[in-house]
């Protein structure tokens, strides 16, 4: 603030590098709520739960829909419902607090400011998440906003929605496998060995790709890219250098460990079936 007479036009809080992490469950839940929305409702609105991480990132982990009525110029939110549901959620996980609200639709719409004001009273600096369930521009657009106040000195002029970067945390979804979550119907969950086979096939395909790339570069069919070259050399270097006898020993030891375990479990099973036979035999006695 340079001079006393000048009043400063500024945004509060200043648009910092705030970002939000969205877990896949939230998107799933919003989509499900949208599919189950009441007749004639244009969109669904709901509360986002989560926590604010130490570095200021908002971690959005859970959500629930809140029934609402919308007419041209006003929005009526079922606040009782919102509080009941919040109390229920907090019974299970007290660490999850309100971090914002969501709405379906493309970007911010008319009533959003009103709802945002309501949530500003429930949480400090809430995040507004919009999920475009209508695929308005052909993409699955998911956007996050925070409200920024424009003020002239102490006098508040207006507030605006400022878009913030979103980190769509798909690690959990990847853990389960997109194959399961992507299709509308999956007949069977993959069991462990099938999953293993898949992963190995992928690994093989990747190695083949790398081979092909290296060959192409060596033959001069492709322009070499230093970055890729460095990645490849890093990857190759990450394989520990072992003498072949030491490696052989390592592998054989592990294999033998596993074999012992297998043997043990087979013996146990034999024991079980034997015990059962003996038990039934004793009953006849």
């Amino acid at each position, binding site marked *: 603030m340079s001079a006393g007479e000048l009043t400063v036009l500024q945004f509060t809080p200043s648009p910092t590098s705030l970002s939000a992490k969205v877990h*896949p*469950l939230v*998107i*799933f*839940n919003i*989509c*499900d*709520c949208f*599919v*189950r929305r*009441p007749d004639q409702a244009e969109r669904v609105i709901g509360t986002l739960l989560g926590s604010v991480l130490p570095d200021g990132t908002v971690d959005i*982990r*859970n959500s*629930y829909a809140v*029934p609402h009525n919308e007419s041209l110029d006003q929005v009526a939110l079922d606040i009782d*419902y919102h509080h*009941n549901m919040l109390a*229920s959620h907090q*019974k*299970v*996980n007290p660490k999850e607090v309100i971090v914002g609200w969501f709405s379906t639709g493309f970007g911010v719409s008319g009533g959003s400011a009103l709802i945002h004001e309501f949530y500003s009273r429930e949480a400090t600096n809430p995040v507004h998440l919009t999920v475009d369930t209508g695929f308005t521009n052909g993409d*699955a657009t998911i956007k996050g906003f925070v409200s920024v106040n424009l003020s002239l000195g102490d006098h508040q002029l207006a507030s605006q929605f400022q878009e913030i970067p979103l980190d*769509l945390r*798909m690690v*959990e979804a*990847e*853990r*389960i496998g*997109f194959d*399961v*979550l*992507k299709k*509308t*119907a999956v*007949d*069977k969950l993959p069991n*462990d*060995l099938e*999953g*293993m086979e898949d*992963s190995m096939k*992928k*690994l093989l395909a990747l190695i083949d790709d790398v081979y092909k790339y290296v060959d192409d570069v060596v033959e001069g069919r492709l322009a070499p890219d230093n970055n890729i070259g460095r990645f490849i050399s890093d990857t190759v270097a990450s*394989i520990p250098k072992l003498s072949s006898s030491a490696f052989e020993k390592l*592998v054989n030891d*592990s294999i033998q460990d*596993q*074999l012992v*375990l*297998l043997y*043990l*479990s087979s013996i*146990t*099973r034999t024991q*079980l079936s034997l*015990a*059962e036979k003996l*038990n039934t035999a*004793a*009953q006849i006695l």
Partner: protein
Amino acid sequence: MAQPAAVRSFLQVAVTEEVASPLRVVQIEGLAILKIIKHCKEFSPSLVTGQLLGLDVGSVLEVTNCFPFPIREEDEEIEAEGANYQLEMMRCLREVNVDNNTVGWYQSTLLGSFQTVELIETFMNYQENIKRCVCIIYDPSKSNQGVLALKALKLSDSFMELYRNNNFTGEKLREKNLSWVDIFEEIPIKVSNSALISAFMTELEADTPVAQCDYDRLQLSTNPFMERNVEFLIECMDDLSMEQQKFQYYYRNLSRQQAQQQSWLQKRRAENMSRKAAGEEPLPEEDPSNPIFKPIPEPPRLDSFLITNQISNYCNQINGVAGQSFSKLYLMKALQED
């Protein structure tokens, strides 16, 4: 009965139709899976449960949503509060058009150690109210290896019948030909997603050729998992041998009693012979007041059945992981040789 046989009440009709189509498939929405995983993982290693909501359609049980239960406390007052919570949650969910029909419950488990008497009791409780219910078991410890360890279980009908009538004795078991394998039935799981979610996921799927589950699967170190598995296995074996000792004790007592009965009977017969010769009335050949005729209570078999189930479960897990480790080791060998 006053009611004529030709007129069947609705209840009767309902009962006969229930029997007609057995439960074949459990169809879970991706949303429910994610919710279960979130809940179980956040509270791991403590074990948690929650309720499954959905619809019962023919031979398919659809699980479309679920909600978690707060961690249970011993206090009775809090228990009542838990029931309130459940009602409140269901009411709230109904308001946003979620299926408001309980179809079972889910619970997390540690290394698949879920076969307990409590599980059976909970199941029987649910079964009283809902004809067809299912228990979904999720194992967070296994999912670190890139496996979606989700299982749908129910108790087999024959077991339930025995358990309900408290007929869990050796004789009845033999009659029904029920062995430990037949307690639980695993039901195949199908996953379904709405078209909207499918579209979103297709859009949001990362372009990278490797996913997190691939990394998890190719992780070479399985030792901690195996160690705990074997540890649990050994504990179970100890339990089982305890149970078997109980049985041995019981059989020993039984045969001793039978021998005593025999000798008593012989004595009585000899006495009767002499009485007959003397022209007196013979004494009865049974004496209920004599302690040797009192039947010895049979030790319960349920525990040993469950332990056996548990052990075979551990064995399966060990086999599965060992099999995967073999593949990984040979893969590593091949890579090193290249």
